[in-house]
């Protein structure tokens, strides 16, 4: 991370010790370390509590195809969360495919094209989308969006295109499934990606725009060929953070995905997600193996979002370094 040199600042961020400073420093460091400790503790706790399932099934906990917590005469309990993992990946993919271009457009509009008077209120509205609790998205989704989407899109499409495109096939039934979940999640992650994109685009130095304009580029060409490429690392980071949010989303998914363990090719079919699996079953787990398997799934979620966060951080660090240290 580039060290900021504030010329006016007499301190370089490391303090000179005076009376009473030592306890203050210790106090703040200790409490700040609680944050660090919390992250490690969370990882460690989940890792340890998932050991039973991990030793019993290994990677199959995440990739095995059968999730059956209850022993029957025919089969031992089996914990393969692939239906849930697949549901998570598919719904997040739908969400990102819809949200990323839209959010890029919104970011470009807010940063480059919006009349200045509208810019603050519109940014506020976009950020308000992020403040709405996810359970409200679920309530609205179940009672308003799903019936509407079912009638207007899912049913007609599944009955026409769906007859020869397997991933659009019916039956649509209640309308809850991967596609509606993906669409609602797209709305939820729009503000995350859009406001980060807007911030990153605003940081592009004006000289880049002027250089492009002066060789006869249109406004859009300036944006698309000079401004956006300049900040592409930051934009990728923003999309990664949005993806992380989608992967971990629980409430909207639980209410909208239909909670079915069957794997179906169609996007209209109900499925389940990793987060909703944990939410639905952890408090009612039938055995310690069951519980441990669910904790493994939760740990995987934690790990994936941690990696995405790290990746996004690195992207943004790379952008910062380029802007501060590069010769442009």
């Amino acid at each position, binding site marked *: 991370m580039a060290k900021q040199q504030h010329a006016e600042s007499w301190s370089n961020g490391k303090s000179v010790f005076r009376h009473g400073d030592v306890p203050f420093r210790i106090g703040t460091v200790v409490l700040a370390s609680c944050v660090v400790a919390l992250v490690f503790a969370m990882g460690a706790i989940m890792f340890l509590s998932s050991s039973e399932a991990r030793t019993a099934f290994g990677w199959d906990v995440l990739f095995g195809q059968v999730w059956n917590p209850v022993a029957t005469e025919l089969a031992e309990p089996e914990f393969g969360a692939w239906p849930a993992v697949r549901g998570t990946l598919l719904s997040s993919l739908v969400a990102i495919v819809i949200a990323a271009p839209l959010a890029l457009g919104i970011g470009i509009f807010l940063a480059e094209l919006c009349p200045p008077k509208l810019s603050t209120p519109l940014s506020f509205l976009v950020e308000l989308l992020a403040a709405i609790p996810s359970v409200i998205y679920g309530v609205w989704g179940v009672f308003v969006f799903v019936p509407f989407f079912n009638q207007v899109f899912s049913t007609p499409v599944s009955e026409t295109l769906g007859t020869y495109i397997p991933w659009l096939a019916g039956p649509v039934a209640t309308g809850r499934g991967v596609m509606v979940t993906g669409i609602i999640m797209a709305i939820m992650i729009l503000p995350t990606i859009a406001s980060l994109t807007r911030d990153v685009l605003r940081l592009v130095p004006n000289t880049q725009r002027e250089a492009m304009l002066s060789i006869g*580029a249109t406004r859009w060409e300036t944006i698309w060929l000079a401004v956006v490429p300049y900040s592409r690392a930051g934009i990728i980071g923003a999309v990664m953070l949005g993806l992380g949010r989608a992967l971990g989303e629980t409430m909207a998914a639980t209410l909208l995905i239909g909670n079915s363990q069957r794997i179906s090719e169609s996007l209209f079919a109900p499925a389940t997600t990793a987060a909703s699996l944990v939410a639905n079953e952890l408090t009612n787990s039938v055995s310690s193996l069951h519980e441990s398997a669910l904790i493994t799934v939760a740990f995987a979620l934690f790990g994936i979002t941690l990696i995405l966060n790290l990746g996004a951080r690195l992207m943004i660090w790379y952008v910062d370094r380029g802007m501060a240290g590069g010769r442009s």
Partner: protein
Amino acid sequence: MSSMTISQLAPFYGARQAVKAVDMQIATQEITAIIGPSGCGKSTVLRCLNRMHETILGASAKGTVLLNDEDIYGVNVDATLIRRRVGMVFQQPVAFRTRNIYENVAAGLRLQGMSHKSELDQAVEEALQSAVLWDEVKDVLSKPGTALSGGQQQRLAIARALAIKPDVLLLDEPCSALDPIATANIEELLVQLKTTLTIVIVTHSMQQAARISDQTAVFMVDTTSGNPIGELVEKSSTSSVFTNPSDPRTESYISGRVG
């Protein structure tokens, strides 16, 4: 090559007029220098000549600027097309960070739809030759544009501007961020270029104006009526401006008493 005729050009920032109405002739195959103390509006006037001034929020300009016989501020004139014909080089050497040297120069050409590799290769080489940069970079064309030194990046910017074959080249204090050797290179280059181009250069260095320009326009700041406003004080051949100025304000500026 085109001449420019400026009549009653008055740039505004919002409601505030920045420079009093300017009347000026810019001849072909000549370097016209614009000098003056800071705040006199010389950059503002320069940026009006390729309609870059209006890209600042709230900025506008009144008056007429004829490029040969067409008014670039005419009613249905597209500013983007004007900027193809009137190129500009800025004070800070700017390279497109995500493009290599070749692509930096080719940027304007690609916009216009040129895509054949042989055509592009030739045009890029021509532009880099005119900018006296070809020999230094011909083997490293795929390196990023930001890998060059300041002086080289400025010549790269000139090459980029020249690649689309403009009629006029505007330069806004192109050497102020460069060391003396790089400055000398650019000055030499400009003198070579003037045979094929019309060149207007804004400079804060009177010595530079005296060295390379054929015509000089002097701007000053008029603070007499409340808000400071720029004003064209004198324009004529460089030699007469520096050795025999007709306006007393020019003389105080030249002799260092003012600005």
